[in-house]
């Protein structure tokens, strides 16, 4: 039984190990390790295309995570007091957001936005005052990436934060009200500290999702290149050790965020289990 588990863990981590190992390979080929070198990291860090893609990914992920955790938390708090048909509708939409394949989200966003832009751009050009110069043309890019990623991750944040709100100690809120705290004061001093770990975990997961997402970005990125899109097209052109270096850095980065998210989710969960 234990041997079986070890084999499965090897199966799960061997590919990751191989990427990390060969990112330090001095040679070009996967089959022979020709000595330790960090030259592929140097190559990546001085490759303007990879760096541009990294900047795009980081920017999109950061804005996505901020918007998703803000609006998602607001919605989770709002849902507490909303019942009936509105609640059922909202729950159904969140369920759809999480369950529908990413590829369908990508396609739907692509054709909906491009169609909308085809209407908006001529109208914008026609009504744009001349002294402001040329009218801006709306198109697919960072904004559509953020919009699509925020949609999905916001649903994720709502689920996570709502779970925490449900598990929250209600008596504390009542006690706070009995002690004449204003609703805002109760929120700031009682509710927020209790849900904050979940919000932060939601933020980190949203960031990780947006940063790692390939399939939605593939459709909605327009002329922009995110890091996963860059990696995918590099793989298409042929396997190079540069991808290993990018992969190692990306994995290390996501791992750090994930471990942080796990710690956040566990921190408040523990004292609660005792009572």
């Amino acid at each position: 039984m234990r041997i079986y588990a070890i084999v499965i863990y090897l199966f799960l981590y061997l590919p990751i190990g191989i990427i990390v190992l060969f990112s330090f390979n001095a040679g070009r080929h996967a089959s022979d390790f020709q000595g330790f070198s960090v030259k592929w990291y140097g190559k990546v860090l001085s490759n303007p295309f990879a760096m541009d893609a990294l900047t795009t990914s980081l920017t999109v992920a950061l804005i996505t995570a901020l918007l998703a955790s803000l609006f998602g938390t607001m919605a989770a708090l709002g849902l507490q007091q909303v019942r009936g048909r509105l609640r059922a509708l909202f729950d159904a939409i969140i369920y759809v957001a999480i369950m529908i394949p990413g590829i369908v989200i990508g396609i739907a966003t692509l054709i909906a936005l491009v169609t909308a832009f085809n209407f908006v751009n001529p109208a914008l050009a026609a009504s744009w005052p001349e002294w402001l110069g040329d009218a801006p043309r709306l198109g697919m890019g960072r904004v559509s990436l953020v919009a699509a990623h925020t949609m999905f991750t916001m649903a994720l944040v709502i689920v996570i934060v709502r779970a925490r709100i449900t598990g929250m100690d209600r008596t504390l809120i009542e006690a706070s009200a009995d002690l004449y705290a204003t609703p805002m004061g109760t929120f700031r001093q009682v509710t927020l500290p209790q849900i904050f770990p979940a919000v932060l975990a939601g933020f980190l997961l949203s960031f990780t999702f947006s940063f790692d997402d390939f399939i939605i970005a593939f459709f909605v990125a327009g002329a922009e290149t995110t890091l996963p899109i860059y990696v995918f097209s590099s793989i298409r052109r042929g396997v190079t050790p540069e991808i290993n270096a990018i992969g190692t850095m990306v994995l290390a980065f996501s791992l750090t965020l994930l471990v942080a998210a796990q710690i956040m989710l566990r921190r408040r969960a523990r004292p609660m289990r005792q009572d």
Partner: protein
Amino acid sequence: MKSSWAHRLLLLPASLWLLVMLVLPLLVVFVFSFGERAPAGGYIPAFSFDNYLNLPARLTAFKNTMIMAPLGTLAALLIAYPLAYYLAIKANPRIRTTLLVMIIVPFWTSILIRTYAWIYILGGRGIPQLLDWVGIEGVRLINTPTAVLIGIIYGYLPLMVFPIYVSLEKFDKRLLEASEDLGASPLRTFRDVTLPLSIPGIATGCMLVFILLMGEFLIPALLGGGKVFFVGNALVDLFLQSRNWTYGSAVAAALVIIMLVTVTIYMKLIMRGAGQREDVSLL
């Protein structure tokens, strides 16, 4: 904070966002699927079922998906179950949390990069070369259905392990002792106690994996080499290469419909079989 309108106000940004970025786009797909393709690849308003009647042109993609998705789900289940059993019942409780986190963490890291690693492992210089050394020659793995299946198991294993673990961890372990005290063999205990009690976890895990597999693109694209073609690959081709939005919308709508129907039937069967089902989150 008390009044209901304040709470509705809190819901406003999320509602608008979901409306504009999810509900409307999905409706657009639905509407486009009845439309006609413009010469340059756009959309001409129309109401015809031609796109749906043309679906058999992509039958191979649907067939591959409908074969590989259940197969991948089954394979993941068979491999995940013993591991979940080990984690929930046999593993040392002190390291259990660490072991669990180690299962979940890869799932949340880039599937693209993890799948990419398998191009090395299954490629000419990987496992086939190792097999060559021990005398088994001419094995080809990359760009075969086997490679795609391995990629699927690898990518989706955590999603299967976790719900099964939760259901196994939850039930009263004294039932196992009781069964043993009553003279049941370990195999009998497993068949009559453990397995039935873990059915909710199995059901959740299979459903999650199956749904996500139906929309898979990356694994067949990277490990199938264009030979093992899923609906996801057909969709990428239709929207990004041949720019046939209306037909592509019909393919996407068909995928979602097949998914919904399968899941509904599946849930009905499970409900009948197990009485209840609990939702499990991955965190």
